[in-house]
């Protein structure tokens, strides 16, 4: 594992973020910090508030209260400056299905005012090659598989070199080879000082990649820290991240639920 190039500066800071949808408090006072060059796992069950938090951090949703800073810039106060530093990959990447992969990257690069020319073109070629999309030249994104869309989504973030990446299930739908590529890539990016906040359900990925994790449950952060710190917090020295996660987000035992489901009919 490449050591992260963290210099102690705060790259992402969530300050008491609250988001209410009608009577539902999807996110309820979430605060955490991510240092520059860190990869931090953002874990939680379905509906815990992960995606809502990420969307607030990237400015897609305005919080009911609280704020978020990206590289010290308030995303709601100075959105254009903050957005220029930020890359967000949704669990269903935002793509234009009627463009080819190359055209889509070109579109994104123009939106972010990347200078045109051979350098940009070479970078595009390298990214398409890296994600094994170069030979799909001429094919529209609408015809891509889910994994390929995920890859073009990632490529569209990297084409413009953001300093902060917010990734919602980036390995979702990827084949093992591509998933490994993404993991290696994230480590390399962190080593170069890029900050990654990674939301994932695959706890092995979080355990392998992340220097720290934040666990959200029903809109509240229930734990933050390194795996060691969480073990100490949970009082179980040899627990895996999966055990810790299940303990911290307690629900009914799965074994009991399965038995109930498969019980013979009366």
């Amino acid at each position, binding site marked *: 594992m490449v050591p992260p190039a963290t210099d102690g500066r705060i790259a992402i800071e969530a300050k008491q973020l609250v988001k209410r949808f009608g009577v539902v408090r999807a996110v309820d006072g979430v605060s955490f910090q991510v240092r520059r060059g860190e990869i931090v796992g953002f874990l939680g069950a379905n509906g815990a508030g992960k995606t809502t938090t990420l969307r607030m951090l990237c400015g897609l949703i305005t919080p009911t209260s609280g704020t978020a800073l990206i590289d010290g810039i308030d995303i709601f106060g100075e959105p254009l400056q903050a957005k220029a530093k930020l890359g967000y990959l949704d669990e269903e990447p935002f793509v234009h299905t009627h463009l080819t992969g190359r055209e889509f990257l070109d579109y994104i690069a123009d939106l972010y005012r990347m200078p045109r020319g051979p350098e940009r073109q070479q970078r595009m070629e390298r990214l398409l090659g890296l994600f094994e999309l170069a030979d799909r030249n001429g*094919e529209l994104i609408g015809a891509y598989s889910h994994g390929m869309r995920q890859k073009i989504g990632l490529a569209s973030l990297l084409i413009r070199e953001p300093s902060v990446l917010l990734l919602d299930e980036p390995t979702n739908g990827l084949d093992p080879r591509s998933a490994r590529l993404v993991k290696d890539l994230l480590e390399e990016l962190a080593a170069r000082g890029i900050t990654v906040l990674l939301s994932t359900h695959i706890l092995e990925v979080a355990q392998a990649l992340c220097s720290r994790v934040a666990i959200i449950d029903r809109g509240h952060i229930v734990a933050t820290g390194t795996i060691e710190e969480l073990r100490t917090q949970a009082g179980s020295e040899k627990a895996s991240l999966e055990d810790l996660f299940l303990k911290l987000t307690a629900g009914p035992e799965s074994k009991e639920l399965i038995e109930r489901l498969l019980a013979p009919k009366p």
Partner: protein
Amino acid sequence: MTRSATAIILAADLRAWRHRLLKRSAARLIILALFLVFAAVFIGGGVFAAGVTAGQYLPGGRDTLLAGGFTGLSVLMLVVGFPTVIASFFVGRDLLQLVLAPVRPIEIFAARLLLAMGANLLISSILLAGVLGLGAGSGASFVYYVLAIVLIFIQVLVITATQAVLMSLVLRWIPARLARDVAAAVAGLAGAGFYVLWNLNLRQSFSPRSRPDLSNLTSVIHRIEWLPSAWPGHALSAVIAGEYGTAAIWSLFSLVLAALVMGAAAILYERTLLAGLGVFGGPQAVWRRGASKQIPVVARRGAGSPARAIARKDWLGYRRDIRRLSRLIPAFLFPIGYGLTFFRPGRSVTGFWTEIFLVAFISMFLSSALATPSIPSERRGFQILRMAPMTMWQVIWAKVMLTLPPVLTLTLLFSLVVATVGGGGIAELAEMAVLVTWLGVGFVSIGVSAGGIDPQFEAADDRRAVGLVGTFAGLGAALGFGLLSVGATALFVFGVGVAEGNVHIGPLPSSPTIGALMLAAGLVMAIGAGAIVGSLLWFANSRLSAYEGAIS
């Protein structure tokens, strides 16, 4: 008893439709209800009254009117119905689910046919009002009214099935790589071509005379009364005349035709459903351009431009989206049809004002077709724009700048032809060019704003891409802007004439003071028109900046 798959599919579709309707706010539902009441009373009532009058005072023209009405309805449905038919029969994830389920294609066809008829049935309600009115004016028996409802329903069924047949034929006989383009051409040209031809025939009816002469219209309808689309009209006129045997024969013909077309559509659909899902269900899988043509685009130098990027993306989207493309062809053909129909050669005050109203209409029509869906058509890609370091003003500006060139080019071209053929000089041409530019900028801005005020990003169809608030705001603003602009033009043109003493308006004396007052009033009206556009742009910007929806 086990329900049929068709009933299950229809029930699910209706339930989804009901949920979509009820999810709207109470205020929107009230506005919708008010609009429906308004439409029923004013539009339906107006057409009904016209029918009553025609039935009472034109006893010899009943057959012609009914045959023409049914044929006109058929053409109108052909013009506007293709995107709905493509969407209902060949597009949608729910359709993929149905294909996977143990459901026969014929059952899917039946359910989708009824669903696709929705838009056409709405259009046909206008004809129904007229036909019922004509029956009332003619003192028709109860049989007439029942038969009218049945025959209009059958007519809608036949047209919708015909559209499905045409699309299936394209899929069956045209290679997949060309099918989308050919389908777009068929969809666009089928109805619009008829429409333009129809208008060309009507042209002489509206040629310069002291009053309109409808003899040409009547002779056109006589020439086409053999068309199957006219048969229900013959059946109904026979009922009015008390010739029930003749009515039964025409009705039977209509029924047999409907059965044949539906049978053909069902068989063809069964054979082309999977191919159709592949061709229409998503974007074209393979784009037939070599890599060599793509590289120069990225190899250009200079800073990347968001506006240029959006322009290129939108152009490619239009080029590759069959439903959007099929809507553009009629949008471009309509102005030509209208132009040829109503154009009067010869320079006169009346001619000049006819041209101005035509130019205003064409500008408004093209803007609504091109500008209004421009923001909602971003779909999920709108989130990319929201995350990009650009303001919503920039997005709106880019969309206005992108839509303006085609609207201005077409309208200017039309004005140039009209002014030249009409014998207008350079001065008139310049007046028209200024007005066209003003109207184009205004209507396009209003159109883009209407889409930005109430965008429905999840709508698969551009026609449903703007909600009620946006639609009404856009319509109201376009009417206000158009009237104020044309009014200002009138005051400018007549004000100069009055100031020079060349024009006399009623009791007003022609003097430089009155002329100056008229020019000042024209200026106020122009400022008012500009203020409407500015307000709408501001409103659209506020709404888009505050947009937070999760677009699935």
